[in-house]
């Protein structure tokens, strides 16, 4: 029994220790660094709130943050609205092709952010497919989709759609559709079945999908740098620049903390009503 107890402890403790060391500790280091200063590319160990004051007062950073926030909310809401009909169709009508449909959605997700952005640039860029076709047909190229916030928006949708569809799909596939039939038998119409049975019972999975798109969009750095154009700087991109070109690590760390705190608060608010057992993330459903 002693032996079994030891084995049991080891099995849970090894991954826990790994996460504490390489996930929690770095985030703590980031918080500490955000209260220090960088001068001439050197870190100075002076405790100060200056980084946060800069972030709260400098107009540019506030603009970047608000732009990121609006973008992230817009992208996530759009994604949920797009993902629901797709997941619903696959679960209800997919039949034996369900697995093929869901894999076909995941495959583009697996080829990586940079390569997918390259592919997207092949569509949207000045010499891309859309504008190439427009020019060939004698029309003027669409300025809107070249190096603009609209281009970033399309890119975010393109990048995270598979993720959100998969989470909603996981939730719906574990949903007992007999409940909807029961509501129908009791005389509810389609709209009421959806708003009072299907949607509330799958809300948890939907919120997880929302968050999985919201968080990376909020801190995105590659998309705006590549597709955003002159007025498309987002918070994450600005943060990446603090660690790259400008070398002001402490300020960048403060931006990282702001992003992290904001994601955590959003997560806390949204997960208030979440019952994880309903998300379809299995292993939680059996209790």
């Amino acid at each position, binding site marked *: 029994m002693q032996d079994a107890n030891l*084995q*049991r402890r080891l*099995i*849970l403790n*090894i*991954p826990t220790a*790994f*996460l504490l060391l*390489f*996930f929690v500790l*770095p*985030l703590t*280091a*980031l918080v500490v660094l955000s209260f220090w200063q960088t001068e001439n590319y050197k870190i100075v160990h002076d405790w100060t709130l200056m980084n946060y004051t800069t972030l709260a007062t400098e107009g540019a950073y506030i603009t970047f943050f608000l732009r990121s926030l609006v973008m992230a909310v817009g992208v996530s809401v759009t994604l949920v609205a*797009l993902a629901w*009909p*797709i997941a*619903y*169709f*696959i679960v209800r*009508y997919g039949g034996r092709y369900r*697995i093929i449909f869901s*894999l076909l*959605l*995941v*495959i*583009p997700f*697996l*080829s*990586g*952010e940079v*390569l*997918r952005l*390259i*592919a997207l640039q*092949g*569509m949207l860029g000045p*010499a*891309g*497919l859309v504008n190439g*076709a427009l020019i060939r047909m004698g029309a003027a190229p669409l300025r809107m989709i070249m190096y603009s916030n609209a281009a970033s928006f399309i890119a975010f949708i393109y990048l995270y*759609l598979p993720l959100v569809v998969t989470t909603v799909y996981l939730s719906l596939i574990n949903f007992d559709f007999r409940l909807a039939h029961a509501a129908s038998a009791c005389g509810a119409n389609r709209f009421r079945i959806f708003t009072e049975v299907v949607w509330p019972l799958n809300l948890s999975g939907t919120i997880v999908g929302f968050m*999985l798109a919201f*968080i*990376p969009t909020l*801190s*995105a*750095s*590659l998309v705006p740098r590549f597709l955003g154009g002159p007025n498309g700087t987002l918070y994450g991109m600005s*943060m*990446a620049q603090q*660690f790259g070109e400008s070398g002001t690590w402490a300020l960048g760390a403060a931006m*990282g903390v702001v*992003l992290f705190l904001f*994601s955590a608060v959003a997560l806390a608010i949204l997960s208030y009503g979440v019952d994880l057992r309903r998300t379809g*993330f*299995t*292993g*939680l459903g059996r*209790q």
Partner: protein
Amino acid sequence: MSPSFTDSLIKWTLAAFLALVFAFLYMPIVHILFASLSTRPNFPYPPEFNVASYVRLSTNTVYQSAFLNSLLLASCTAVLSTVLGFLATVGVLRFAGKRALIYAIFFAAPLFVSEILLGISSMALYYMLFELQGNMLTAIIANAVHCFSFCFLIMAAMLYKYDWRMNEAAIVCGASPLRSFFEVMLPITWPGIMGSLITAFVLSLNGLDVSFYLLGATPTMPSVAWGALRYGVKPELYALSSLINIIVFAMIIALLVAIRLKRKAV
């Protein structure tokens, strides 16, 4: 309107929408496949078949070393995160008892921290503690943190219906715990383990954010692609991207076929 008519109307509207979404997801991929095979990469229609950009890609030494680095990084990350994810899955499903939910949330937490934050914070930590600029090992570890959650969720999904009494039965019959793992558990759970290995491999092969901050000057595929991107997209990049897409596609098909074959055999 009869209900069955409305039903099929809804069904076909949704089907058309799904087709549109698939077109949106796959058009860029197919477009760059054509572009990589064409002598006119900007508007490669009608399609041609010209492998010049693939030849240039294979003779480019920067891409070669980047490819080897990425391969090393991705294989190590896949193994590390799958082993840890497996331990976590077994721990949560079998040993955690009442605290299963807390552990599960903790193990899934890296999913909710963006990759760039993970990369930047790890870089800051190593720099503050050891004045390290980052190397392959730190990059593997940071990537493994990110992939660990995916591995955990994939294996938990596959394993939660697993009957643990089978392990106990094997042990009662005189097998060592190690032998019961290799001869009972592994043969049954391998689709989940393979899925986790492939996902972690592909994620770390393609991830830029984490590796970018932790690898310093060591080139990997995504960082070379990113560097080249800033000086304008070249057909070689299209070729590279198409190649990776084809490899990923082949891996998924292989996994599907393997699962099919296994099911038939049982």
